[in-house]
């Protein structure tokens, strides 16, 4: 049963991520990435991390991809003539991607495969996760909070209209 669920959502993730990469319309790419992220969230739950799976759906599809869709509609980039730049560049990029894949597979099979421990209640429980996050990893947690604050301020400043634009930008106004 677990194998069946894994195969179903793994195939869904791979297929929809291919659509993300090859589709010309960025809106469709974004919606397809939503499917990919949902499938990966299911796999997180399967791996005994239900909290991270919920966070994946909340943060990624709830916040980040909505931001992407919003910017796509704001910038009006509906379509590009061809998805990739030139044939040569495409071949090089695909080759590099394949090399990355091959390297990771090699490292994976190089490492000794160790049998998986049975899933413990301690791993799945929120209590242990929270204890570690707010104990040993409290300082990184606070730093990440500061990083998000800085990012929000920086994004606001960067996306603001410049005081004296070089060219008139009236048609950008909503």
């Amino acid at each position, binding site marked *: *049963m*677990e194998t069946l669920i894994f195969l179903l959502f*793994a195939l869904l993730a*791979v297929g929809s*991520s*291919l659509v993300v*990469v*090859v589709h010309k319309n960025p809106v469709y*790419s974004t919606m397809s*990435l939503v499917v*990919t*992220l949902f499938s*990966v969230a299911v*796999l*997180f739950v399967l791996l*005994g*991390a239900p*909290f*991270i799976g919920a966070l*994946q759906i909340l943060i990624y599809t709830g916040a*980040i991809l909505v*931001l*992407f869709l919003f*910017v*796509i509609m*704001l*910038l009006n*980039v509906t379509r*590009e003539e061809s*998805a990739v*730049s030139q044939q040569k*560049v*495409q071949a090089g*990029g*695909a080759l590099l*991607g394949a090399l*990355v*894949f091959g390297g*990771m*597979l090699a490292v*994976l099979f190089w490492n000794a495969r160790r049998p*998986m*421990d049975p*899933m*413990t209640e301690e*791993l799945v429980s929120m209590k242990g*996760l929270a204890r*570690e*996050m707010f104990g040993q*990893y409290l300082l990184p947690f606070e730093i990440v909070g500061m*990083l998000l604050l*800085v*990012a929000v301020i*920086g*994004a*606001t400043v*960067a*996306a603001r*209209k410049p005081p004296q634009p070089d060219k008139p*930008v009236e048609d950008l106004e909503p």
Partner: protein
Amino acid sequence: MSVPVSWYLVLSAVLFAIGSAGALTRRNGISIFLSIELMLNAGNLALIAYARQWGQHTGQIIVFFVMAVAAAEAAIGLALFIAVYRQRRTIDVNRINLMRW
């Protein structure tokens, strides 16, 4: 019947390779960003799989931090794209060569 952890790692490698190929070949800045998000998620999947294998929470906590950093990166990057679009009227990365020598 439990799925071996190496299957998850192979899936993670596949997703990462697809994302890297997309990030290298796409021209649209937003599509490149989407591919980068895909690669980040593939890395997250590998971290969760290793956390499951070793029965520890550390991988899950790192995934939490990666998600926060990805959110910050998306916010900053999209704001930069809006700023570039104001100036250039395009986010085609072949035409944004402001910093090319």
